[in-house]
């Protein structure tokens, strides 16, 4: 379902509880993408909400890295990318905390933008993460997948 990544660029995936430094991630990618003129990042942040006390992220450790690497490789097979980086946190986060980021580097901006959106669309619906919201009144609720997230995959025209 995913092709091998034919790129010589740098592709990396990291999953864990620790916070990350978006600036350091970008600087490290910049250093490895000579020739690329465009670098796009997306960063997901826990939305501030008076009633939310924590966002808990569960994952499937045996599967997560492979699923993310496969999504990155698929993007690399589709666009001429000099680099891809995916960082995703797991565990208990608070409002305003960073959740994850993706970065894509390419020669032209359109490719870098499209690849970043592709990564996000697949990561939302095809990587084994689940979010649970904990509220101030002691209740908790598993975040439900949104129909529009599943629908977003449709525009990439692949059934994976």
């Amino acid at each position, binding site marked *: 379902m995913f092709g091998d990544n034919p790129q010589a660029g740098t592709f990396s995936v990291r999953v864990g509880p620790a916070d990350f430094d978006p600036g350091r991630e970008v600087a490290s990618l910049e250093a490895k993408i000579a020739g690329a003129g465009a670098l796009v990042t997306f960063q997901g942040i826990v939305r501030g909400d008076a009633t939310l006390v924590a966002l808990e992220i569960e994952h*499937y450790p045996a599967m997560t890295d492979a*699923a993310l690497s496969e999504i990155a490789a698929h993007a690399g097979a589709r666009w001429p990318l000099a680099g891809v980086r995916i960082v*995703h946190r797991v565990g208990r986060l608070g409002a305003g905390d960073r959740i994850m980021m993706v970065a894509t580097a390419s020669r032209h901006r359109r490719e870098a933008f499209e690849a970043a959106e592709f990564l996000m669309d697949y*990561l*939302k619906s095809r990587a084994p993460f689940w*979010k649970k919201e904990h509220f101030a009144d002691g209740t908790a609720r*598993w975040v439900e997948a949104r129909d529009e997230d599943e629908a977003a995959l449709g525009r990439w025209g692949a059934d994976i």
Partner: protein
Amino acid sequence: MKLRVVYFAWVRERIGLPGEDVETQAPTVAGLVDELAAREPRYAAAFQDMTAVRVAVDQRLTVLDAPLAGVREVAFFPPMTGG
């Protein structure tokens, strides 16, 4: 055959454990689901609406008719909500 079966998110919570070894002769994932659902109400509750449950076999997303021959691990979980 003996399989490792693992559960995540509300599937895990409803069944009440993260995973277990299961002895089964079911030919497909769907057959395994039927066997599990027949065990106890907590399994039946987890598997009552299979349109809300996703399946991975040996860490790859797959469908309910996927065969179990040669499989080592089956995972059940709700639609993913990463990002």
